[in-house]
């Protein structure tokens, strides 16, 4: 079972945190600090796995973002790498060339997509098609408000020059 998933930038800014077991806030902050410090210190082309306490840490960098998760002893590291990759693919499919800004401005969407994919630290659905379908279905349920969205557009113009993370 995956214990947690963190997304943070090269500057160490946390972009998304998902905890699959409840932990006290202090413990979470400690883990975040340790993960960011450990992962950012890794040199390029080293392996994607680390040991930390009794957990296996698997991380991968996509453009400016690090995806990092903590696994239990019996979990498969290679497969966890592909969990991260599949999540990136899902984000990419939803946002279209997803970049860090998409995740910042639509953090709630990033959580919703993750929820369709993982639950309680286990894989719920691996099919890209099914997941996209259910996300689209829930988007259809949303009522459209305000056709002109000035600040959002400014984010879009920022994002126009965005570097996709895939």
């Amino acid at each position: 079972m995956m214990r947690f998933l963190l997304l943070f930038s090269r500057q160490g800014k946390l972009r998304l945190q998902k905890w699959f077991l409840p932990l006290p806030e202090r413990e979470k902050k400690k883990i975040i600090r340790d993960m960011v410090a450990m992962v950012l210190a890794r040199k390029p082309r080293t392996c994607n796995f680390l040991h930390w306490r009794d957990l296996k840490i698997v991380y991968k960098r996509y453009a400016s973002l690090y995806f990092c998760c903590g696994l239990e002893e019996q979990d498969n590291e290679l497969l966890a790498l592909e969990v991260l990759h599949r999540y990136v693919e899902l984000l990419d499919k939803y946002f279209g060339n997803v970049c860090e800004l998409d995740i910042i401005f639509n953090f709630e969407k990033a959580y919703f997509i993750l929820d369709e994919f993982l639950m309680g630290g286990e894989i719920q659905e691996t099919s890209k098609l099914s997941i996209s379908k259910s996300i689209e279905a829930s988007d259809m349920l949303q009522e459209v408000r305000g056709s002109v969205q000035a600040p959002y557009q400014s984010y879009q113009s920022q994002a126009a020059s965005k570097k996709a993370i895939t």
Partner: protein
Amino acid sequence: MPAVSKGDGMRGLAVFISDIRNCKSKEAEIKRINKELANIRSKFKGDKALDGYSKKKYVCKLLFIFLLGHDIDFGHMEAVNLLSSNKYTEKQIGYLFISVLVNSNSELIRLINNAIKNDLSSRNPTFMCLALHCIANVGSREMAEAFAGEIPRILVAGDTMDSVKQSAALCLLRLYKTSPDLVLMGEWTSRVVHLLNDQHMGVVTAAISLITCLSQKNPDEFKTCVSLAVSRLSRIVSSASTDLQDYTYYFVPAPWLSCKLLRLLQCYPPPEDGAVKGRLVECLETILNKAQEPPKSKKVQHSNAKNAILFEAIALIIHYDSEPNLLVRACNQLGQFLQHRETNLRYLALESMCTLASSEFSHEAVKTHIETVINALKTERDVSVRQRAADLLYAMCDRSNAKQIVAEMLSYLETADYSIREEMVLKVAILAEKYAVDYSWYVDTILNLIRIAGDYVSEEVWYRVIQIVINRDDVQGYAAKTVFEALQAPACHENMVKVGGYILGEFGNLIAGDPRSSPLVQFNLLHSKFHLCSVPTRALLLSAYIKFINLFPETKSTIQEVLRCDSQIRNSDVELQQRAVEYLKLSSIASTDVLATVLEEMPPFPERESSILAKLKKKKGPGAVSAGELEEGKREGGEVNGAERPGDNAAIAASNASTPSPSADLLGLRSAAPVSAAPVSAGSLLVDVFSEAGPAASTAGVNDDGFLSCSSALSSAPPSVVSEDPAPPLPESDELLNKFVCKNNGVLFENQLLQIGIKSEYRQNLGKLPNTLRNIVLLIFIALLNEILLNVQLKPVDPLVEGGAQVQQVINIECLSDFSDAPLLNIKFRYGGALQNLSLKLPVTINKFFQPTEMSSHDFFQRWKQLSQPQQEAQKIFKANHPMDTEVLKAKLLGLGTALLDNVDPNPENFVCAGVIQTKAQQIGCLLRLEPNAQAQMYRLTLRSSKDTVAKRLCELLSEQF
């Protein structure tokens, strides 16, 4: 156009996020956030009711602020309100807020549960999934109480949508992990297992996580899943890459499901059904074969997914550990990976070879890769890969390659990363000891270790080298020579000084013949390091100096000079000062004989589990912690008891007793393990429980000279050390004791956890004890019926005792004077996490010290008359408890330990016996007469003894026997 345009961008939220991003400083950010928080608070408190959209927007802003790392202490109520909105997006944001922010003990949980209940019964699959997600995210006990009954029903209901089934399966798993007692599968079991056959791959993928977890806890109830899993796996493995449509990931069919199936099978032993097993072996072979095929894609995702399955298959093969052919193939496959250009694969190959190395079938195959692994240790750029290489070298080490591996690890240590040095040091120390054929190699290795990585050499490591040198006289000379040479280095590590000081103090004489290492040269060498060392090391050196005075009288004046100087005798450290004063006094007033006795060479240490191993286990994770604790406890016990152990070096005992300082050089005390675990009750110390180090300890024990008694006077330690809070003896222990009065072997105690067998034998004491002393050796066999952790304090046993294993403890008991209470045996162990405490009376009764005496009728009656004072006789008339069989009676009386005298008593029906009880203090003669009356089924038992208490006690004991 990106898909987001479909959403309802919350304008205010986007503005706020932009503002935050534009903040130039942390202060500006905090200011902006506080402004926003004040705004939201006023909106929430305002009179005007907020519409759903605004509520959603503000809740979302709060969530964003929280995720930035700020505390949020309001808004929960508004979020809960959103749950009951009928607009999907509002509900969704509400659930998200609750999932992220509500901790399990919130008082809002009842309101939340209500909203969840409504959504679960709404039959709207999207709402149901949201609710299930929320339960899984919060996962509290209250939620388990509320929904654990409902969710299994949703999971197996025929009309539930597939997506809801998936959520329900994982949600149930989450609740099962929090509150296994609340999730009762019972009636659902078989329907849940059959989800493995579901048409929908997504449902199978989600359900199998649940089934795996349930199988681990209740393997029997779920064992039908094995054949289902095998057939599902076989279908996937043999399918073409396109068969499974979207469940094919980069040309690999269903990698997640395959791995989970292989993982599920690891919960069970190999299938018994031949057909199932055949099919499974076929699958595993196919997976191994596929690894050799050219890749279908160059993408890393393809190879990762493929290899993930391969590693999981290898893990299953290792788990079964029964198919030599597959094991060797697995090993070869991993061998290929060891040289793969992908760092990840090298890392994983090293890791999984570690487990393979412990299988007897593949150990040899793993060993063939030694050069590659050594090369990895030397050349890998990545420290975590090097760490795995070091682990593997440790795992593959055996007698044949130990020297090579230890040498490589040592040379690696010179450049090793700081993060792994300590562990490496422990590993080298353990391997060197475990596989040492000649101990000079061992000494070299450890000294090298201290030289290269002295800072990382923990106390356990250098304690251990000293224990070994002391116990093996073939290596002592070599050790002295080697430390002497090592100390020549201008800068040597303090640990080296400690080892050097100790070894030269004990065995410096072995190299003193060489003028290059004459006594004075040795002393000057040691003393040249003195001023650079810490207090504990200096204390150790002072002890070495006093030992020098004994070994080499010619150094006496020089050393006394050193002891006398102000920096020693007035040292501000009380330990050093005291040692200087005491040693100086000792060296000037004691005669050479006394000095020689007091400063005698250390006796051998009892063989025990290496403390280093325990330390490594402790380092290795929480699983081993209990063993580590036991080890700690053991050592503390050793320290307390060591203080009064007569075999200990007296000078050291003296200084320890005066100032018990744990940091001092009390090697003997800290690591000597003999502990009297037979605390003697009620202040009558009658038996002296010796350690296994028997002869040496006893020799010193009988040295009744001045200094020893002086040292025990110094130590205010109580005469007997009662192990801390032993449980009161079992109520039936007196009865158990009686069973052993007339016999020496048998089962003392048995319960569902363990069985304690006793085998006691008299031994004429080996060697130097006077013949008047007689020791009983009790061999206690403890057969464990279940897996428990055992800590018998006599001789440390392996802290983890397997079920069904036997542990043997030898207790030497010497009788000091007569006694009536049996010593207590206190056994503490851990079983299932709980500490068990068991107190039994050891079947040691006074009659165990009988020496039979043969005598003629005349002599017997003459003595009988001599013992005619009333208090010297004890008599009892009692009813027979057992049939009066002459042969049985004879056997019992012989078992008592006395001589059964024929033709003594004029009445042939009567039995007379004679014996002498040997105690250290005195010999106590005893005569016995047993007169059976077959008609009345009664006995009259008469005992006469030179000591009244003995007669009385024997009479009591024996009256229960017939």
